[in-house]
């Protein structure tokens, strides 16, 4: 009841806001394009993204906007979306919530984008959703790049659409896999000592996995010296299977230290820190990565036999020259392709409300590289929910055990972990959505 009053109030507010916006800001534009939504014109659709391009969080993520633009340009060159070309306005938030709010305000109020796509970071997205008041303004924030489970709460974040499976889901699935395959072995865990890591711990706990040795590290503190200390602890405890639930730099430090210390264990890398290209750039020897396992919801970016990967690699070569095709580029292209499908589904004269309605009704059928289905519905904003577990080969490509993808799915709560045969829509011809 409380919710409905609130809802009504926000509806009234949204309506009045829309009226005010119409009478105030769009007066001159009205004469020319009376029935186009904000950010849409006869020939273009304007989207926006906030992501760190500079600062210590930038490496890796700074490749995302260019890769998204590359895919959009590819689509634009092939007729666009219902004849409209997509443009992406990129804003650097340096991974700071204050900047994310200010830059999203710029996107919404100055650049007047149709929707925000692929914005990065848990705290940033929380601050943006609430302060910029995306919900009350009815501005969609699509496919946000974070594994925090709370964004699936539609009542709290009515216009925010998370894509990635949550960290809890990932940990639960890893936990189940460990129980199935490494029962009785001594287990170790390296995790980041913040929400990221506590989500992981919650997931492992839900899966009923207990680690013999846990090594927390403070975000940003990882160095060669800390790597040595972590591995020392794992070694002392005799851990045989070690999960690294950390960012790339921490994963790299741990693997490099284990190489330096001749410490052999079965490594299982979380998806956040498991990008082989980044790990190699961090100086991890190929020998130590070979045979390590990892969890992922996307195919390995190095697996050119995958139809999605192959197509994306082609587009990357032609439209994003010079960029190494890694996990970040893959996620960016995948997000961009989902965006194009959402825009197509929204019809020939897309509105923000129409876009979100289309996402909720048809999102589950969109073609995407992930082996996991997308669960968007009128009652849920949960995106991907599944992972597959694979092994890195000697050239850093992660491939499924036995060559066949087995998908594990679960939820962020107490639900069981299920294995399902992986099924995903085929890549549309030439990578151009035809939904």
């Amino acid at each position, binding site marked *: 009841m409380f919710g409905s009053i609130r809802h009504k109030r926000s509806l009234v507010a949204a309506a009045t806001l829309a009226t005010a916006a119409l009478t105030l800001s769009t007066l001159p534009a009205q004469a020319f394009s009376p029935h186009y939504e904000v950010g849409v014109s006869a020939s273009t659709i304007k989207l926006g993204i906030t992501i760190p391009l*500079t600062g210590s969080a930038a490496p*890796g993520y*700074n490749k995302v906007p260019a890769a998204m633009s590359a895919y959009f340009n590819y689509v634009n060159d092939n007729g666009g979306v219902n004849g409209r070309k997509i443009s992406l306005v990129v804003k650097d938030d340096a991974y700071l919530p204050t900047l994310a709010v200010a830059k999203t305000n710029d996107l919404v109020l100055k650049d007047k984008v149709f929707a925000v796509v692929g914005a990065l970071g848990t705290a940033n997205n929380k601050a943006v959703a609430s302060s910029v008041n995306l919900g009350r303004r009815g501005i969609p924030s699509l496919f946000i790049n974070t594994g925090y489970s709370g964004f699936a709460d539609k009542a709290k974040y009515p216009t925010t659409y998370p894509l990635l499976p949550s960290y809890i889901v990932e940990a639960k699935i890893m936990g189940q896999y460990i129980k199935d395959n490494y029962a009785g072995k001594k287990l170790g865990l390296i995790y980041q000592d913040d929400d990221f890591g506590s989500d992981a711990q919650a997931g492992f706990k839900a899966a009923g996995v207990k680690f013999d040795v846990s090594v*927390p590290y*403070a975000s940003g503190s990882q160095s060669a*010296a800390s790597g040595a200390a972590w591995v020392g602890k794992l070694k002392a405890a005799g851990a045989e299977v070690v999960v690294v639930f950390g960012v790339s730099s921490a994963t790299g*430090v741990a693997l490099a230290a284990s190489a330096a210390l001749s*410490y052999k264990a079965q490594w299982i890398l979380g998806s956040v820190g498991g990008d082989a290209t980044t790990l190699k750039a961090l*100086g991890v020897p190929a020998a130590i990565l070979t045979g390590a396992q990892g969890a992922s919801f996307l195919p390995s970016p190095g697996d050119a036999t995958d139809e999605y990967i192959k197509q994306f690699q082609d587009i990357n070569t032609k439209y994003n020259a010079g960029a190494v095709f890694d996990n970040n580029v893959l996620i960016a292209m995948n997000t961009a392709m989902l965006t194009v499908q959402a825009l197509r589904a929204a019809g020939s004269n897309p509105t923000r409300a129409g876009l979100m309605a289309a996402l909720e009704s048809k999102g589950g059928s969109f073609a995407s590289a992930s082996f996991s289905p997308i669960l968007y519905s009128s009652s849920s904003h949960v995106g991907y929910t599944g992972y597959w577990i694979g092994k890195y080969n000697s050239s850093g490509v992660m491939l499924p055990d036995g060559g066949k993808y087995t998908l594990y799915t679960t939820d962020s709560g107490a639900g069981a972990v299920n294995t399902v045969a992986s099924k995903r829509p085929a890549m549309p011809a030439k990578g151009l959505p035809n939904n």
Partner: protein
Amino acid sequence: MRLFSTLLIGLSSGAIYSLMALALVLVWRSTRVVNFAQAGQAIASTYIGYLVISRTDNYWLALPVALVAGALIGALVDVALIRTLNKRVKSGPAAEMAPVIVTLGLLGLIRSTVGMIWGGDLKAYKAPVTNHGFTFGTTTIPFSPYNLLIVITAVIVMAVFSIIFQKTNLGLSLRAAAFQPEIARLAGVRVDLVRTIGWAFAGGAGAVAGVLVTPSNSLSPNSLDLLLVLGFVGAVIGGLESLLGAAIGGVVLGIGLAFILEYVSTSLAFPSAFIVLILVLLIKPSGILGKKGGRGA
């Protein structure tokens, strides 16, 4: 064995903190500026070293090239920026803050420039010797030939500095100009030139620290930020005025952090660096080598 290997690994990371601390102290002594841009100067020099390595695959060429580049950058910063600053901002309440802002601004400027030239991606290059730990019998310790190389290089740099400072005329001028610039002037020391040389030395030390630390981490426009902060902590532990203090402060910090990592908590090592700093400042404000009351009035 565990004790011994923790000590060694702390020594190796401490050696790098010491070099950064040394750079900060050199500038502080000669110009009374805490040079936040030191991390920027070091990152630019390290990228130049990276350029040499990626072209020639020769670490031993990259190290001196980066050192010289660092020295030149340091000298340039002093001549182009700090001299102007000192001329324009002589007194007033802004006098203490202006150098902070100018060096911070410079840090941003250099980082952005580096980003424009090399992009924001992670770069890496290999250590010239293996970073596979030494093995005694069946035990492998984390301390590797590369760690040994770091310690030796740092010791050489510090030994060269100490000889220059204690035994040469240039060193005497440097010290005189640092302690009492006006009197040094009246004795005929070309204080401006000597200061610039001090900045150059600092730039060189910072560059060596950057080139040494990078194979263990990776290279990006922000990758030496942590080193700057830890170098500063080391410098303050050592008393900020003394080169020997900086060397010892850095090593003490490195070993201290290694022991906290090994024996206390892997996640508290980072915050504890700051707790150590605050404790040192409150308990023995002049640093472990400083004179009594050095930091008050």
